[in-house]
């Protein structure tokens, strides 16, 4: 979301890009000052026809484009005085299309070029303060700069290396004074990832030496950096880190020296934004991160604190009263004895065994199972009352957890809350009652009736206000806090209803705060905990989706993963109901994941795949492009249920002017009425990859880059597919290549993508041919219905690939019109058999049926199959010649061509088996004393014959059984 740089060139060189667009390896210098003209040198491949740049953001204007060589070009740009600061995404456009994306930094400081040699203090390059140095660290290189410092001066140093994008570059910075003392040695920082930053106050006027190197003294020709040195402000994080969109908010800016207050203006859109801090000293070279959300800001220190807990008296008890009447019935539970009519702790009553009166029982503590038999004699068939006085400072709701043996009634302030006449033992937290206390005195009365045996209770009265001092969190809100002391855990209380869902999203590392948040929600009186450390897609930040298991107060805790702390350990927790996610689209080319631009040749077509996430499957979403350039048409299918990515074909007229564009993607629901105005196009592009092409830093572009480029030397046209593709069967798609005169090259044709369950081949059409067919095959799981497919042809222009696509074709997948089921038979070599085949015809058709065997092994000759729609079964005579190979033959298919009004439909059936048993080997003749005599030879042969029949019989029986 936040990080914005890119490097696709590594990938491009690896050959996974399909078109002849240029590739850019670096743009030098990597940045420029606002309000200046900069001459850029662009290095890469296929740049000889450079036309211009496509800039995603405003503020940079191309003045001059100069062609030089295939691997180098020059572009002069003018950076407007009010050009937005920071990373600008740049694509280079040539006559053949758009390049990969690069970043260009726009800053406010004067630019200085690093000059070699500057490898040690003696050759150090002298630079003034408040400059940006553009440099490069090649292998084994050290870059040393020297600055003059005055006493008391606060100097900030920031390296932009990795964050410029490109190859993974790990810069290392050392700062020494003129006596050689090490002032700072910085490798990685949280703020700059692998880029070092430092902020130092000068104690003695003199010279400071800044040494930059690649961490392991590696470095390549692409290891560029921008070193900013000066007295500019360098705060790292804002507290609070955000506010409502479009508003100004006051924040304390922490890091890079003394913290200071500033007012931050937020943009009108929600989300994470970059903010360049400007003070009298200047502007930060790189932005801090701020958040704009609709939720009201809540600050850690100024939340409403939970008030004091209720005062609760000890238990009073009175009893025993009788539980059993003269007839031996248990009447205690339903008999209202005087205490439950009026609570008067002073009066004496008639009990079961004489006079009883209220007595305080301080031994009855909370959260303990009490055996009342210790307090009362003869506890069988008795009733006792327990009472408690609760003094509440404010009216509030408390939780009573109670369990009594055997039956229980509970009143509060005379109002009955529970009548449990079911006889039960003591189970802690058996009854969970919310009691609304009035302000002031409250009376809690409990009646326990016992029949016999154990007699006791377990009770807890939980006042959420025991969490005194915890801040009370409102929903929704955006809570801002700091973990400033080691081992600190910030705790907040919030109320949730049973089943209520809440999202706690921590924004912390995304602000580049050193805090690695861990968030937890717990309940103080039950074993309940839910927590989250890191969530995929949010980096080190946490997202906890919490569903309240019951109504009550919960405690939310936030801490650092490693329990570290500091003034900059800022967090912002967005607490809200889970929000519906907005529809987002992106270009996603299967097999070509780094391809995210469309390059449409004049008079030709180019196709891309667009994938949607958070899509309402039944809405029938139709995409459109708001700003298609003149002469360009887009063919966009609708997202139908089951489809999350669609092919989009752009078609340019022959006279459409060449241009570079960024298409704004819009969406409309055709079937359901839903609001898609917040729909976004998010193209996440890697700007730095770690080894093995692992994503590290990314940038995102909200529009689809499209270039109208020079006419392609060939076009690809595919014929409309009239015939459906039947499951488990093949289909051929015919196409034609039209080459311009003089273009003599083969063209490789493939599908843009294969719909699920459908496979296809690739065909190379040689230079002397124009027509070809592509073979499709649907498996048994291919979805029945219409699929949108596109064919893509790839040719060659001066050694670089160039693509052209067909129109979108409708491919219908269907179930068979007529099915065949082939039987399983067994035979011996040379012995003919009959192959049973059964047919069904689920669909109506009027035409003929033709049958054809495919892949039948040699030596097996089937009689001609004559079929019509009504045929149900055929016993097909099969000739098994002697040279038919023995074994189990299952590879053959029966192809049924069905004539319908759509045409001849090909259907393949692959079942059945013809088994030819290998002849039994003749038993080896035991060598006898007279081997020369011919006579004995005959007898074993006979024996073998006599031995054979039994298995034969068995086999035939089995075969017969199968037939039957």
């Amino acid at each position, binding site marked *: 979301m936040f990080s914005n740089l890119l490097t696709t060139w590594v990938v491009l060189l690896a050959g996974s890009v399909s078109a002849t667009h240029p590739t850019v390896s670096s743009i030098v210098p990597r940045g420029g000052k606002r309000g200046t003209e900069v001459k850029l040198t662009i290095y890469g491949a296929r740049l000889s026809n450079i036309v211009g740049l496509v800039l995603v953001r405003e503020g940079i204007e191309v003045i001059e484009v100069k062609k030089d060589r295939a691997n180098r070009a020059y572009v002069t740009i003018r950076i407007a005085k009010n050009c937005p600061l920071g990373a600008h995404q740049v694509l280079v456009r040539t006559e053949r299309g758009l390049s990969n994306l690069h970043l260009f930094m726009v800053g406010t400081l004067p630019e200085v070029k690093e000059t070699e040699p500057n490898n040690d203090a003696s050759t150090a390059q002298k630079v003034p303060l408040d400059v940006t140095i553009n440099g490069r660290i090649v*292998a*084994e290189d050290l870059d040393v700069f020297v600055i003059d410092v005055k006493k008391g001066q606060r100097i900030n140093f920031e390296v932009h290396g990795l964050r410029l994008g490109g190859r993974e570059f*790990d810069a290392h910075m050392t700062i020494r004074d003129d006596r050689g003392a090490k002032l700072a040695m910085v*490798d*990685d920082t949280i703020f700059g*990832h*692998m880029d070092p930053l430092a902020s130092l106050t000068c104690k003695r006027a003199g010279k400071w030496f800044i040494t930059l190197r690649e*961490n*392991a*003294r*590696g470095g390549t020709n692409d290891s560029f950096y921008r070193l900013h040195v000066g007295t500019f402000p360098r705060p790292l994080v804002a507290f609070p880190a955000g506010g409502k969109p479009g508003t100004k908010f006051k924040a304390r800016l922490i890091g890079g020296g003394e913290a200071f207050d500033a007012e931050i203006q937020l943009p009108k859109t929600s989300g994470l934004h970059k903010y360049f801090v400007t003070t009298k000293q200047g502007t930060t070279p790189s932005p801090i991160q701020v958040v704009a959300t609709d939720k009201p800001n809540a600050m850690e220190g100024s939340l409403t604190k939970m008030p004091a807990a209720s005062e609760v008296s000890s238990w009073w008890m009175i009893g025993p009263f009788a539980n059993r009447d003269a007839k031996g019935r248990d009447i205690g539970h339903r008999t209202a004895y005087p205490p439950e009519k009026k609570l008067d702790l002073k009066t004496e009553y008639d009990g079961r065994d004489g006079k009883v009166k209220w007595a305080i029982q301080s031994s009855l503590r909370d959260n303990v199972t009490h055996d009342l038999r210790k307090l009362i004699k003869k506890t069988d068939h008795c009733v006792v009352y327990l009472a408690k006085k609760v003094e509440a400072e404010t009216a509030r709701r408390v939780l009573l957890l109670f369990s009594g043996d055997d039956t229980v009634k509970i009143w509060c302030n005379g109002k009955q809350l529970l009548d449990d006449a079911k006889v039960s033992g003591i189970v802690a937290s058996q009854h969970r009652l919310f009691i609304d206390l009035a302000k002031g005195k409250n009376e809690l009365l409990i009646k326990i009736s016992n029949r016999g045996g154990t007699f006791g209770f377990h009770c807890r009265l939980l006042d959420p206000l025991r969490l005194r001092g915890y801040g009370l969190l409102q929903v929704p809100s955006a809570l801002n806090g700091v973990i400033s002391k080691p081992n600190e855990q910030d705790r907040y209380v919030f109320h949730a209803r049973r089943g209520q869902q809440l999202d706690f999203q921590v924004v912390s*590392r995304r602000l580049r705060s050193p805090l*690695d948040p861990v968030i937890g929600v717990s309940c103080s009186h039950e074993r309940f905990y839910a927590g989250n*450390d*890191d969530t995929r897609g949010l*980096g*080190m930040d946490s997202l906890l989706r919490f569903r309240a298991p019951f109504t009550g107060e919960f405690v939310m805790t936030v801490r650092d*993963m*490693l329990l*570290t702390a500091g003034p900059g350990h800022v967090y912002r927790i967005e607490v809200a109901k889970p929000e519906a996610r907005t529809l987002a689209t992106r270009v996603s080319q299967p097999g070509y994941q780094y391809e995210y631009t469309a390059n449409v040749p004049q008079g030709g077509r180019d196709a891309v795949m667009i994938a949607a996430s958070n899509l309402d499957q039944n809405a029938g979403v139709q995409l459109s492009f708001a700003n298609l350039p003149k002469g360009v048409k887009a063919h966009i299918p609708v997202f139908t249920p089951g489809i999350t990515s669609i092919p989009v074909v752009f078609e340019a007229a022959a006279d459409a002017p060449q241009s570079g564009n960024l298409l704004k993607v819009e969406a409309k629901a055709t079937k359901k009425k839903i609001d898609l105005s917040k729909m976004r196009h998010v193209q996440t592009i890697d700007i730095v990859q*770690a*080894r*093995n092409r*692992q*994503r*590290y830093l990314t940038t995102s572009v909200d529009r689809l880059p499209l270039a109208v480029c020079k006419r392609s030397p060939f076009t690809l046209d595919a014929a409309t597919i009239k015939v459906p593709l039947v499951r488990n069967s093949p289909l051929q798609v015919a196409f034609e290549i039209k080459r311009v005169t003089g273009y003599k090259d083969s063209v490789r044709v493939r599908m843009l993508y294969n719909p699920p369950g459908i496979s296809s081949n690739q065909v190379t059409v040689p230079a002397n041919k124009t027509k070809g067919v592509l073979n499709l095959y649907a498996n048994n799981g291919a979805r029945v219905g219409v699929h949108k497919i596109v064919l893509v042809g790839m040719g060659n222009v001066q050694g670089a690939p160039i693509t052209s696509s067909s129109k979108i074709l409708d491919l219908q997948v269907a179930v068979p019109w007529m099915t065949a089921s082939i039987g399983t038979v067994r035979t011996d070599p040379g012995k003919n058999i009959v192959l049973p085949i059964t047919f069904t015809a689920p669909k109506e058709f009027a035409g003929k049926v033709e049958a054809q065997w495919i892949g039948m092994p040699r030596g097996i000759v089937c009689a001609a199959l004559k079929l019509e729609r009504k045929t149900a079964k055929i016993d097909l005579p099969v000739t098994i010649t002697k040279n038919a190979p023995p074994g189990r033959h299952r590879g053959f298919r029966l192809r049924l061509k069905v004539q319908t009004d759509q045409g001849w439909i090909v259907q393949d059936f692959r079942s059945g088996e013809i088994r030819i048993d290998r002849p039994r080997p003749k038993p080896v003749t035991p060598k006898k004393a007279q081997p020369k005599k011919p006579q004995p030879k005959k007898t074993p042969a006979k024996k073998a014959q006599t031995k054979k029949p039994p298995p034969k019989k068995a086999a035939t029986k089995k075969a017969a059984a199968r037939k039957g």
Partner: protein
Amino acid sequence: MMSHNAFMLVLLTLGGPVVASDGEPPKTVRIRAYPPVIELFAANDSKRFIVLAEFADGTTREVTNDITLSFGNNPPVKIDRNFVVHAVHDGEGELRITFGDHKLKLPVKVRGAKTTPAISFQNDVIPVLTRAGCNAGTCHGNSAGKNGFRLSLFGFNMDNDHTALTREMRGRRSNTADPDASLILTKPLRQVSHKGGRRFHKDSEQHHVLRRWIEEGAKSDVGKAAKLTKVEVLPRQVVLVGAKKTQRFMVQASYSDGTRRDVTDLSLLSSNNAATAKIAEDGVVTSGERGEAFVLARFGGIAEVAQVLVVPDDPNFKFPDIAPANYIDKAIFDKQRRMRIAPVEVCDDSTFLRRVYLDVINLLPTPEEARSFLDNKDKAKRSKLVDHLLKRPEFPDVQAMQWAEVLRIESRRLERKGMHVYTEYLRDAFRDDVPFDKLVRSLLVAKGSNFRNAAANFYMTQRQPNLMAEDVAQNFLGIRVQCAQCHNHPFERWSMDDYYGFSAFFARVGRKRGEHPYEYIIYPRTSGEIKNRRNNQNAPPAFLGGVQPTIAREEDRRAVLAKWLTSAENPWFKTSVANRIWARFFGRGIVEPADDVRVSNPPSHPGLYQTLGGKLVDYKFDVRQLIRDICASRTYQLATAKGKSPPGTFAEATTRRLTAEQMLDAISQVTGVAERYRNLPSGARATQVEDGDSRNRFLNVFGRPMRTSACTCDRRTDPTLGQALHLINGQTISRRIRDGNGRLQKLIRAKAKPLALLEELFLATYSRRPTNEETVRLLATIPEDTQKAAQAFEDILWALLNSKEFLFNH
């Protein structure tokens, strides 16, 4: 173990500098009897005893056969011809032993002379099976058993063994109804077919024990019977004079009920140096060539050793009158004196110079450095040189490299960045004199990102808690506990409980992905356990040795471990670290190999071993100071003598082949042509190569470790054909000699005079000037013609680089 060592130290010092000079037989100083008290506990109990005479020159002789014996009145025992004492009736008495002028009273106590206790499965049967080899790893003690019969290795799990003997095979193994039909009796007697052959005879004690046990019902008393608490090998130290002398040893076991048994016949006996002392099954040692041997007795899971020194029969031996330079020499001389070995002379300056350069900074001195040292007349120049080298920036590189090897710093597990910052971390620590214990603590408790906190990479090299524990024990304690993962260590005290208890300290190390795809965050978790495979229960964290610290739930177990591990009280940490340092300078540890400390591999100089550890503590784990002591000792500065003294006496310097890094750096230095290493700047040395896989053929051929294990044995110094061919034919040398920017070609271009050139080459390769003979002979081979002369010098340099004097650190 410590008390044992201390005891031996006392003995050694008691040996004293008494020298018999006139060839007369040495005077007997005293006689001792082993065991010091004879106690008998049952009617069938018997004990043997040994009488040892100690002589004035420190030697000993067994005189059991030469003594005269007498009893007081009504002795409770009788003694047979083999000096075995048998119980007669309860009571106490004493045995009066006379040998020459020396008399000794040996107390005798008898209890329970009327009773014959039942056979104990734990204390009788299992030892019989162990001694007979039944439960050895090659037989039924194999983890898969043998032919369906599976016992635990050396009886560490007796419950299972009892089940195997009495329950399995439908009880055929022990038939209480008909004991003689039991397979456990018929198999070892080979009455039925037994692949293991006959293990004992029908009238042997072993057979009787097994048979009686079955007769008595084949019961198990595991856990109920008295527990074995101690095993002793007596006498603990003998000094035999000359070859083919015999000495009996006995093994005595003590139990928790206060009884003691003579278990010589039930122990597994072996010697670590059979050429010096061979031990027979009955405990009789026969001396061989001069040297030191340790006889090892293993009984009931405990191993103990006794020391046997064999000295030449040379009563005229006189230890030279040399002053020890420091405490190291004192300890070394003491032993040499006892072993009747005189140390050789101190080496010359050039040898010392070359040796100390290589040992401290892995480099050769440059000709200029050599010249200035050789011409220096300062008497303290050697110690000054050591001080100088310890301050050189190459010193931390060498130290870091040595530890990086066993800490497995390599890019496969750490990724390039992690590997680099971790190596830098070690270098910085040695450069900035961070005490070693502090460094180890910082590794053990490391947390956070392995990119930003380099020490966290310590936990990236191993991910399983038990493997981490193995590495820590081997690296920092010198203890190999690996065996105890599956069974109790056969040669050591380490049990499975020790293994899993120690592993449990690492069970709560959490790892999670950081922001960089290869970055990990190491953090202590509050949950996580490791199961002890012995009983499938969670193992509570316990230090080696069994002490279980109390650790709060929130507390980081690793911090508790780090405190214990690096404390001065820990007997293993300080000594094993000191021993590693020692091993680098002598090519051999006092315990050798340096990362295999165990009872059965005792230190050659126990006193010095402890002293070095103690010194390291005194020096607050500053390794530089200990190195200073080592280099200052006369023992380190000895000349070589072609292996005339037995190893481990340190009476001469060991010649050591240059390690792979030393060799390649030396060749680069001598020829003046540097090697290029992957991912390192030009001019980097082989010592600075950070990755395990250096991708350098030369280094691989010469045995640079791949850093895939914590074992020091991964560094190979054995010669191979490949090495020889590499030096003789390979490009490494020939390319460099001819390189135009190399030392030789530059000198030739500068028209150096042959004599000066020769001296330069000798100083560069050997750190010495050529001898007169060498000068004369070599100059004679150099033709007048300039071109041919250059060719001749190339040949000379090639010869120097291929000579033993260059290839070895001597």
